[in-house]
């Protein structure tokens, strides 16, 4: 599949933003005061909104984006939009009360956390629902999205918050555990993606044309001499060229460097090292998300 930069940016940043909103909503210890509360709100909500706005850039008609809120009964894309907006509104109310009264209303926070995780789940289901793309069509896909969202949200919360201990463990240790879980799920996802092919449905050029029973089927001539929308969007291959190198980059920037930085953060100036960890992780996730699209093969490629 064609890796659109706007969609990669969207899934990574809104994932991190909703992850941070989840942590704040669950009551992660943050600095109090009107400015601190506002900045926390700005980082979480800002990342989420920046991602959602970016996603409209790949639309043919961004000015009609509001129409996407109407078909939540059947469409995961529509559900994502609806849940995201409700969650952002709840988070705005939560943040306003927090800013002006210093109180963080727990039940409202839980609703924000639940809405944030549901939004990320809906995002992942946009891809996981597609039978035409076997790499994505897996229960592991939502787990990947949720795990990365939680890990990056926890990392950001650890950076701007004031928690030294979470569940009895030092905050950087908890972040390392979350990162570890996320990358283990992703490596399982990658291992599956490497071997899945079209075995899920058993599709091949023979079933695509229905001529398989006659013999070996091979495309002799394309319908057109140049590229078309289908070959550009769904039979994209250039992005796969450096797949192994990009996976290494994703592991190093998204996993290993943040873990090393978290280890430093256990001993000295946590904010500084957690900031480097967060930046590194986001860049690593861009590489991971690029491959999510670029390595995915679409059933229509069986006709080309």
């Amino acid at each position, binding site marked *: *599949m064609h890796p659109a930069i706007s969609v990669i940016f969207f899934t990574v940043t809104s994932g991190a933003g909703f992850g941070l909103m989840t942590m704040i909503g669950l009551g992660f210890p943050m600095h109090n005061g009107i400015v601190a509360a506002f900045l926390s709100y700005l980082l979480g909500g800002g990342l989420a909104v920046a991602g959602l706005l970016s996603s409209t850039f*790949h*639309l*043919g*008609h*961004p000015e*009609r*984006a509001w*129409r*996407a*809120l*109407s*078909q939540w*009964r*059947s*469409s*995961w*894309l*529509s559900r994502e*939009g609806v849940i995201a907006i409700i969650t952002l509104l709840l988070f705005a109310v939560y943040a306003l009360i927090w800013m002006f009264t210093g109180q963080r209303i727990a039940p409202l926070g839980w609703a924000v956390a639940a809405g944030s995780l549901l939004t990320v789940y809906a995002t992942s289901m*946009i891809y996981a*629902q*597609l*039978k*035409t*793309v076997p790499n994505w069509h897996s229960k592991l896909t939502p787990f990947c999205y949720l795990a990365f969202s939680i890990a990056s949200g926890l990392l950001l919360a650890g950076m701007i918050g004031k928690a030294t201990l979470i569940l009895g463990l030092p905050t950087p240790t908890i972040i390392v555990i979350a990162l570890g879980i996320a990358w283990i799920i992703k490596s399982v996802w990658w291992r599956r993606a490497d071997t899945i092919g079209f075995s899920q*449905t*058993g*599709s091949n*050029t023979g*079933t*695509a*044309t*229905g*001529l398989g029973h*006659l*013999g*070996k*089927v*091979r*495309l*002799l*001539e*394309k*319908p*057109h001499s*140049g*590229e*078309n*929308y*289908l070959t*550009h*969007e*769904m039979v994209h291959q250039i992005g796969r060229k450096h797949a192994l190198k990009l996976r290494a980059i994703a592991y190093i920037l998204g996993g290993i460097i943040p873990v090393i930085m978290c280890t430093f953060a256990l001993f000295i100036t946590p904010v500084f090292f957690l900031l480097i960890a967060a930046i590194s992780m986001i860049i690593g996730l861009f590489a991971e998300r690029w491959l999510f699209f670029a390595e995915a093969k*679409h*059933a*229509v490629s069986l*006709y080309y």
Partner: protein
Amino acid sequence: MTLLPAQTNKKLGLVIDLDVCVGCHACVVNCKEWNTGGYGAPLGDVDAYGDNPSGAWLNRIHTFEVTPDDAPAQIVHFPKSCLHCEDAPCVTVCPTGASYKRSEDGIVLVDESMCIGCSLCAWACPYGAREMDPVENVMKKCTLCVDRIYNDNIPEIDRTPACVRTCPANARHFGDFADPNSNVSTMTRERGGYDLMPEMGTKPVNQYLPPRKKSRPEETTEIAPAFVPKAGEGLLGWLDRALEKLG
């Protein structure tokens, strides 16, 4: 509304006869011609006369080579357009309601004024039946020439999809699959019409008729006796008999 109708009164669609198609692309061209002036925005092209032309088409012909284990390869021209699936995944993923399947006749359409151009429907379709218009930035697809088949302003003979009307080999047929006695239902039954990628669970309406079995040299066939040279009357007959006598 992107929920699929529970059932449709008619199931309009095409039968495509792979035994007959000669791969002339006339259906492709007539489809483009009709649909660039009919329903919705024109079918856009980019760099049409330049080095790297591309554009939106609703019907394309691939050519496949099929090689049996024990016989020479054969060529199959393979026209492909929207199959107007009963369980159309392109419709349910649409976030805006622009994509819909009509309950009266089963045609899958896009309301272009509501389409945001998110591409998700094209991703959901296993057949590559939907293409983004590079000029209008809305999703384009086969309409089964909805603006021809019900059109009282054109002669009755023309009230079929443009691809069917133009096919010089009669490889494309239009009709109602809900009627078991229609032309398309009969053809499908008698010739073993089949679904493309049935494993995707889309329940396509359009049916493909397989190439007929090719005769092979070692096999006796019904038409072979006609080709055994036979002496007739006249000069050639006399010559044949005379030469036979020589042993």
